[in-house]
């Protein structure tokens, strides 16, 4: 029993860090976020070559067949580098395909040949799979991430009283941008008017597949948020060491220093919760759904609070467009909301531990 990364997991993490430092420095992040889709084909190809897109998918489906801790380690580094684009939506789609047993389509997502996303949320804006109401492929989905760059869209729908997951080619549906806070990931309204669609799975199995895919992508997101928190803290602490006022580095004043200490407390605590959730997922433990909600409830608040402090510590500089903090801060808010905020996950925890 040891709560830390194994040697091979550490190697994967440090390779990912080197890779993104070289392939996706902040200058690239800023360039890519200015493009239409914030999804860069060249970067995506190199990520595919590294095997990053299929880390957690089985080898027979073109993946690396690793566990969720490895996924978390990779996602943490991606969060640290603020990698723009479709990694999480592609993971979400892949996990849904995997859970639905659609191995053929999964392979295309795992090896980078195609990208995918999941259309789940509707006007009611609920992350609960039971709140999906759109009848078989007629209606609107909202907040669909990376829909314009995706080749495939997994659609959650409801046939009569049965839930179902469908696969739709992205070009068969209308996608309307929903400009939002995070500049590195794009959201779309997607209109369905009876496009050609393949039924992947239905009934209770469809709900379970969607629940599982949500857990997978939520764990990755929590780890990614940890990386973002780490980076915001690093930027702010570095500034506090060099910026002088009243003749001293501002980091020498306890009012500033203690905000930095809080950032560390939030970051390390979110990291503990994220990796533990990943571990319970790998183990297939009955505790996994609770652990995932604990991780997301904690990270959602902690990531926002870390961002608040990072901006505050840097004063006027932290509020400028040229400073990178706001890019992480924007991502932090989008991540806080994605797949259920702290309030949503606390109610889930309450169902698990109170009722």
């Amino acid at each position, binding site marked *: 029993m040891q709560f830390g990364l194994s040697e091979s997991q550490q190697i994967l993490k440090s390779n990912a860090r080197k890779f993104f430092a070289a392939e996706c420095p902040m200058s690239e992040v800023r360039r890519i976020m200015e493009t239409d889709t914030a999804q860069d084909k060249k970067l995506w190809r190199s990520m595919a070559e590294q095997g990053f897109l299929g880390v957690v998918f089985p080898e027979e489906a073109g993946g690396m067949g690793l566990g969720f801790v490895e996924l978390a380690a990779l996602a943490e580094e991606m969060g640290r580098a603020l990698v723009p684009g479709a990694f999480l939506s592609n993971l979400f789609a892949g996990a849904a395909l995997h859970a639905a047993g659609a191995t053929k389509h999964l392979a295309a997502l795992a090896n980078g040949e195609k990208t995918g996303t999941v259309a789940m949320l509707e006007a009611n804006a609920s992350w609960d799979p039971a709140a999906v109401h759109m009848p078989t492929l007629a209606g609107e989905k909202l907040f669909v991430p990376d829909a314009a760059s995706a080749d495939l869209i997994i659609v959650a729908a409801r046939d009569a009283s049965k839930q179902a997951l469908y696969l739709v080619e992205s070009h068969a549906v209308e996608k309307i941008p929903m400009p939002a806070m995070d500049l590195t990931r794009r959201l779309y309204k997607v209109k369905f008017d009876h496009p050609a669609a393949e039924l992947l799975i239905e009934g209770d199995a469809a709900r379970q597949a969607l629940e599982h895919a949500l857990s997978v992508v939520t764990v990755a997101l929590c780890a990614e948020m940890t990386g973002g928190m780490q980076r915001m803290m690093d930027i702010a602490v570095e500034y506090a060491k060099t910026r002088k006022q009243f003749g001293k580095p501002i980091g020498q004043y306890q009012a500033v220093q203690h905000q930095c200490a809080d950032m560390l407390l939030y970051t390390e*605590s979110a990291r503990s919760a994220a990796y533990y959730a990943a571990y319970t997922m790998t183990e297939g433990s009955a505790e996994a759904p609770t652990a995932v909600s604990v991780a997301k*409830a904690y990270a959602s608040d902690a990531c926002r609070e870390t961002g608040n402090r990072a901006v505050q510590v840097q004063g006027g500089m932290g509020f400028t467009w040229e400073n990178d903090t706001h890019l992480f801060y924007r991502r932090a808010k989008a991540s806080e909301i994605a797949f259920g905020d702290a309030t949503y996950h606390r109610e889930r925890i309450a169902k698990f531990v109170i009722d």
Partner: protein
Amino acid sequence: MRAWFGENVPKDWVKRRDEEESMLGRFEYLRGWQRKLYDAGWAGISWPKDFGGRGAPVMEQVIFIEEMARAEAPPMANVIALGLIGPTIIAFGTPEQKKRYLAKMLSAEEIWCQGFSEPNAGSDLAALSTTGVLDGDHFVVNGQKCWTSYAWAADWCELIVRTDPAAPKHKGLTALLVDMHSPGVEVRGLKQMSGESEFGEIFFRDVRVPMANVVGKVNEGWGVAMGTLMHERGTFGAALQVNYKRNFNRLVEIAKHIDRNGKPAAQDPVIRQKLAQCYAEIEVMRLNQLRAFSRINETGVPGPEGSIQKIFWSELNQRFQQVAMEILGPYGQLAHGSPNAFDEGQWAYGYLRSRGNTIEAGTSEIQRNIIGHFVLGLPKSY
């Protein structure tokens, strides 16, 4: 381990804790329980075999704590010795000291306290002024310590004294093991806002301490004291999760039986949010501790990042106790002895007691200074 707990965990602990009037009565009960654990070989899982321990890796100690929590077992009595001073002697002590003291810590035959804080040396511990003057092969100790937990029960004390007044403040200190039954030692209770006298003051008047009782080297006591404090911050909180989980489960039970807006509080969305947040934070505290133990397993010592655990357990308990007050409503304020009080007034006590959490074992402010300077590398603020 689980089987042993199943057969041996006393079922009357919570009732005894809540009903027993005297602190000493509760203490003797826990002392008996620790003795039982010691006899079965559970008291010092990661301590050396030669000194009454099991010689197992530190992670097995973690499993033990988790099983204690699962079994809702009572805590052990000699907490300062087990959590702080024992590990300090293991790290810095002579073979003779290890042989003399460790096993009796585990069996709770000798209870320990930690003589660090003084009236004029709290957060600025290195400013302490209790003196140790060499006289032949003894130090003669004079001065006063305060806020000393378990001083009233202690047979021994890890005492930090100034042995070189001319040296810079961190360089003239020495750590001594002092027999609390020595002539010249006087203990007075210090009544806390919660009404108990868990802490005490200790007065030393010409107390003679043999040189053989120096831990580490003379005038290098600051390093020894820091070793003790690293354990206090880094790992001491692990044992607390046993209490936290039990308190949480009990509060959930209460929330099912107290109404709020015409239905049980446990069904009220606001209360559910607050309880779930407590659950999440207790989990995060447990996981932070697990990671801290894993690092100790690799490096052998807790690092300055242990201050994170100290802040976390103390601030979490204050938030938890406030949630308990909200759920209990008018019942929350009821003290021991009141009719209709839940759990014999434990909640009112727990709420008041939690205010001390962010002060004892280093204030939250000092912990944030430590994180700022020693972990994040910011310039020292003082």
